[in-house]
């Protein structure tokens, strides 16, 4: 006869908890189905679909100029870079010769967008680990970029500055001056970020060795952007497949090998320095010329399949267009960085505490509309 000792008095039971869709740490309407044993995470299941707007399907209905506007609403923090991706795909398909001026301006605007996105991420990262003040510091510096964008293209969040063939408007006369002001300002503020958060003992305790992602896993999960680079996976599209003016500038790809939350944090901080250096290299050498090549009012891409990838603030954004030669794409697919980065959350968060999950999620830098198009 089998004898089994059952500890009825001290039975530990896993329980299930809904984190989101309305939760401060999920930054939007992401819902995580957590299975928890006390404080320890046993399983994380992301549940998507709360902000699905069928952008890809809408693209099949719209003309190529209109599609650009939809991309703002995906990863709204790198709106300009998303615009650029579609524009580049269309321009490459049409084999348009884009003026140098446009390329340089697009690169500068793209890097400004990246800094602005990382500023917001830094603020939110601090908030997720409990340091509420960082949020306002990040927003102070982001505000300057938003002002520059507002002056240049009239919008602060969804810029729609790029159009197939170039830029919607030429840059504002103040643009160069104000970007220089911003670069000088931000160079004094970035060390402040380090003083406030990076060197903090509690912050390091919360992040070092938490949510470790190995290089192999990073590659197999399709991680890109700072998440992949923190694991030692060199995946910077700007470096490996330069577009716009990235082949004309020198910058180092921020790489770390630890793969933990702290490494992802440091990669993004370093990326802000690199973006500053890219802007500095280009801001004085914006060539004269046209800001736009005239295209047909109705753009019809030749029959075929086109793919363009760019590096957004979150990682590799791919635009895959199948055209049948009409004014609409037959099918348009976005490969969004957030989706792949979210997919590895279960892999790296299991075994940690609830606090670890929040810190890990903060460094994945998820923007939910980007995941849920």
């Amino acid at each position, binding site marked *: 006869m089998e004898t089994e000792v059952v500890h009825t008095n001290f039975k530990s039971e896993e*329980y299930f*908890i809904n984190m989101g869709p309305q*939760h*401060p*740490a999920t930054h939007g309407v992401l819902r995580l189905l957590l299975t928890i044993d006390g*404080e320890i995470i046993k399983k994380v299941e992301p549940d998507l679909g709360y902000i699905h707007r069928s952008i890809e399907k809408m693209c099949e209905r719209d003309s190529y100029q209109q599609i650009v506007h939809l991309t703002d609403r995906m990863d709204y923090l790198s709106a300009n870079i998303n615009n650029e991706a579609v524009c580049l795909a269309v321009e490459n398909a049409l084999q348009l010769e884009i003026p140098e001026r446009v390329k340089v301006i697009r690169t500068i605007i793209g890097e400004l967008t990246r800094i602005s996105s990382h500023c917001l991420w830094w603020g939110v990262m*601090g*908030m*997720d*680990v*409990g*340091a*509420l*003040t960082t*949020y*306002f*510091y990040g927003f*102070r510096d982001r505000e300057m970029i938003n002002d520059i964008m507002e002056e240049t293209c009239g919008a602060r969040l969804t810029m729609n500055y790029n159009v197939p063939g170039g830029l919607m408007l030429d840059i504002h006369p103040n643009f160069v001056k104000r970007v220089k002001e911003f670069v000088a300002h931000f160079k004094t503020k970035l060390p402040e970020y380090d003083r*406030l*958060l990076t060197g*903090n003992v*509690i*912050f390091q*305790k*919360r992040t070092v060795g938490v949510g470790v992602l190995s290089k192999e896993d990073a590659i197999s999960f399709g991680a890109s952007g700072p998440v992949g680079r923190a694991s030692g996976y060199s995946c910077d599209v700007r470096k490996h497949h330069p577009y716009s003016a990235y082949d004309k500038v020198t910058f180092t790809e921020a790489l770390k090998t630890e793969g933990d939350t702290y490494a992802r944090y440091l990669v993004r901080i370093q990326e802000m320095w690199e973006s500053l250096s890219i802007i500095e290299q280009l801001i004085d050498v914006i060539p004269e010329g046209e800001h736009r090549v005239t295209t047909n009012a109705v753009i019809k891409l030749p029959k075929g399949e086109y793919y363009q990838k760019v590096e957004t603030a979150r990682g590799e954004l791919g635009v895959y267009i199948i055209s049948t030669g009409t004014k609409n794409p037959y099918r348009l697919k976005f490969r969004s960085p957030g989706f792949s980065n979210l997919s590895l959350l279960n892999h790296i968060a299991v075994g940690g*505490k*609830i*606090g*670890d999950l*929040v810190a890990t999620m903060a460094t994945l830098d998820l923007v939910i509309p980007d995941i849920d198009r």
Partner: protein
Amino acid sequence: MILLSITENIHNWLFSVMPAGVASIVEMVLIAIVYLTVFAVAGLFLVLLERRVAAWFQLRIGPNRVGFQGLLQTMADAIKLLTKELTGTDRADKFLYNLAPYFVIISALMALAVIPFSKDFHAFDINIGLFFLIAISSIGVIGILLGGWSSNNKFAIIGAMRSGVQTISYELSVGLSLLTMVVITGTLQLSEIIEIQKSGWLIVQGHIPAIIAFMVFMISGTAETNRAPFDMVEAESELGAGFHTEYSGMKFAYFFLAEFINMFIIAAIAATVFFGGWLSPFGITESIPELGVFWFLIKTMVLVFLMMWFRWTFPRLRVDQLLTLEWKYLLPINLVNIVLMAVLVWLNLTIRW
């Protein structure tokens, strides 16, 4: 002195118009009402101060529209909270759910009774004052545990359990660091502790071990009040609002106010035990005893500011790191520190002037 003469007049008048037994009960009720009013106002002021200090740290202005410099802002908030509907969860344990906020607020208010604001402004000067403070301030956690348990909400129960773990652990450090100072004073009565400090604040008298005890007390005191960087209980980015997720209106306000009063109590204990309470520095205003309240509040406010500074600068610890800090660092340091202090007192190495 004016205050004292007013209270004495009321005392004499009460005893002249009614029998002694009734008069003393009426007097107690009056004192309680005065204390409640003063601390409702003090709590609201601390909330405002916190918001203004936070704004100052965060490059903002903060509330400055309602009343002069926003002085009436928190009053307006309190009125809003009073008029709000009290919502609750289905299948919650209604009795415990309603009881919980009172545990928290009553323990906070009871502790205030023994705090010496000045030589004369001291409601309840018992000979176990310090012990009473430690004992009373730990009752509050029962309210938090009850609130989390009875809310029928998983986030609330996680918050409450964290709170239980945290408060039980840090209670040790609070008690031991204060006991370190009792080694010098030889008394638990708060008025006597202050009298002893006429020959030098205890942080000077006890120098090295006293400074260690002060640091330990401030760390564990912050943890005791569940404030950042130890706000595991609320941890808004992890648990939403933690144990008070399901509370609304005035019940929520009780939790909220209790946190601020607890912060005031921790700062007041530190000011009393380490910095001479209502004594002026170097006895510069010893001839004017009315200034005692002023000095006491100045010292307390500096320490309150220190705690706000912690909150708006540091990230939050993780729950296991919180326990590591207490059991592996603060507690051993504390135990060694008591021995060190005892040796210091034994060899008569304290500094007095």
